[in-house]
Structures are given as structure tokens and as C-alpha cells.
């Protein structure tokens, strides 16, 4: 019921954007305002990447070859798996399987922590090789993008803990899962950003 009032009462959007006309909004409107804002933020990162690549093409050819590609691949697989766990958590809350839902949330949280550990190790490895944010224009963009993404994964991982707490308090059920779904779509957004970041930094030469 709270979800319905949130998705109807924000009068800033035209009627054609309402759930009745355009379809169900996964989660709620406020999280989508957040998601679209963050997409804009990451969009700025990507534009900066393409502008820098235009002006320094050789640096952007050499740069990816200096990175620890296998750590990037590992992190990509971890985030994809975490998204899978998050989708499974949503599937289970819809069946009122709260225990299984919680289990999948913990698995997603574990993947988030694993990502953060591997990313930290990668930054440390870069440092050992003598690479830092001021090494070249590629590395400036690399740290700009990956450190911001790192922060987002950290915040969302903390949000998973909050959602697990709320689940244990009985706040979510098959009929009322908008808050959990809001976290789920935010987590998928973070995964989507890494799906774009990974080829730009690790694959394209």
C-alpha cells in the first residue's frame, strides 16, 4: 500500500509515466530517481573516457595491457553471480520463502565483499608495478571510474545488510517487497555499470 502511494503521489512525472499507463515500477520511484542519477554520474565518467581516448590514443592502447586482466574478469564474474543471487532472492520472497531469500541475500553480500577485496588487491598490485592515478591519462580515468564504482559496491553491500535486518524483522513478504526490490534493482544497476566499465578498461586496446 505504501508502495502504491509512493508510485502515485510523486506528481512530478506526467500521467503517461504512471504504473497504470506505462507498467509496473520495480521497487519504487525514489530508487529509480537515484538509479537514473547514478547512470548520469557514470555517464560522465564514460564521456570523460572517450574524450581522453580521443586525445591520447596510444596511452589507451598501452594502458589496458598493463592491467591485471584476470582480476578484472574475476570481478566481472563475481558481480554477475551476485546479480543472479539477488534475482533469486527476489524470486524467493515472492514465494514467501524468507529463509531462502535471506540465504541468497547473504550470498550476494558475500560476492560484494569478495569484489571489494579483489579490487583492493588489484589497486595494491598496480601500486607494486608503479602505476597510480598520475601515471598516465589512461590510469587517471581508470582510477576515476573504478574507485567510484568501488564506493558504490561498498554502499550497496551495506544496504544488503540493512535489507537482511529488515527481512528478519518481518518487513518483507510476497505481498510487500518493494523495499527489497528497490535494493535489488540498485544492485543490478551497479552490475550494469561494471558490464560497461570492464571492456572499456580491460578489453579494448
Amino acid at each position, binding site marked *: 500500500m505504501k508502495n502504491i502511494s509512493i508510485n502515485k503521489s510523486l506528481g512530478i512525472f506526467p500521467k*503517461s*509515466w504512471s*504504473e497504470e499507463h*506505462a*507498467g*509496473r*515500477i*520495480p521497487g519504487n520511484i525514489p530508487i*529509480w530517481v537515484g538509479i*537514473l542519477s547514478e*547512470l548520469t554520474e557514470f*555517464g560522465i565518467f*564514460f564521456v570523460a573516457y*572517450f574524450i581522453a*581516448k*580521443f586525445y591520447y*590514443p596510444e596511452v589507451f*592502447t598501452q594502458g*589496458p595491457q598493463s592491467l591485471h*586482466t584476470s582480476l578484472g*574478469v574475476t570481478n*566481472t*564474474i563475481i558481480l*554477475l*553471480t551476485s*546479480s*543472479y543471487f*539477488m*534475482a*533469486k532472492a*527476489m*524470486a524467493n520472497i515472492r514465494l514467501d520463502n524468507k529463509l531462502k531469500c535471506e540465504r541468497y541475500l547473504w550470498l550476494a553480500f558475500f560476492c560484494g565483499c569478495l569484489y571489494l577485496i579483489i579490487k583492493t588487491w588489484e589497486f595494491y598490485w598496480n601500486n607494486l608495478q608503479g602505476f597510480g592515478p598520475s601515471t598516465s591519462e589512461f590510469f587517471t580515468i581508470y582510477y576515476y571510474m573504478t574507485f567510484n564504482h568501488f564506493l558504490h559496491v561498498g554502499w550497496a553491500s551495506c544496504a544488503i545488510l540493512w535489507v537482511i535486518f529488515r527481512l528478519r524483522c518481518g518487513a518483507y513478504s510476497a505481498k510487500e517487497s518493494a523495499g527489497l526490490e528497490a535494493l*535489488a*534493482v540498485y544492485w*543490478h*544497476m551497479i*552490475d*550494469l555499470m561494471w*558490464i*560497461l566499465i*570492464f*571492456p*572499456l578498461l*580491460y*578489453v*579494448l*586496446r
Partner: protein
Amino acid sequence: MKYVGKLEYYLVALIAITLFNTFLGEQFSSTTLVTILIALTVTYKGFMVIDHFMELKGANKNLRFLMRLYFVIFPSLIIVSAFY
């Protein structure tokens, strides 16, 4: 149960595409063809997560359009960058 099976399929497909992209990047220099292939696979991966993990397929068409547009615009810039 059918729905549960599909999630596993999508995860395996996403991982396979990721490994394929990495193989392309490691084994070949980023020629125009390789860059276009990578851009298309990134778009496909994004669409898969948007439609089936975010569950926007069959949900709000405006949000689905915006999310998918994002994964058309930036992979298109990847293709444009091949001509730098």
C-alpha cells in the same frame, strides 16, 4: 520452476560472453571488427540484465526504454572510438 531455470541459463550465458570478450581483447588487437563485436556483446549483456535480472521486461516501458537506450548509446561510442 521454469523461471528459476531461466536465471541459471542467463548467468551462464553472461559469464560465457564475458570470457569470449576477454579472449577477443587478449588475442586480437582492437580492429574495427573486434571493437564492433565487443560493443554488440556489451549491449546484449546489458539487455539481458535489464530484462531478466532487473525484470524490466513486461514492466515499466519507459524505464526499460531508458535503461536499454543507455546500453545503445555507450556501446555505440565504443564503435565510434574504433575510428579514432
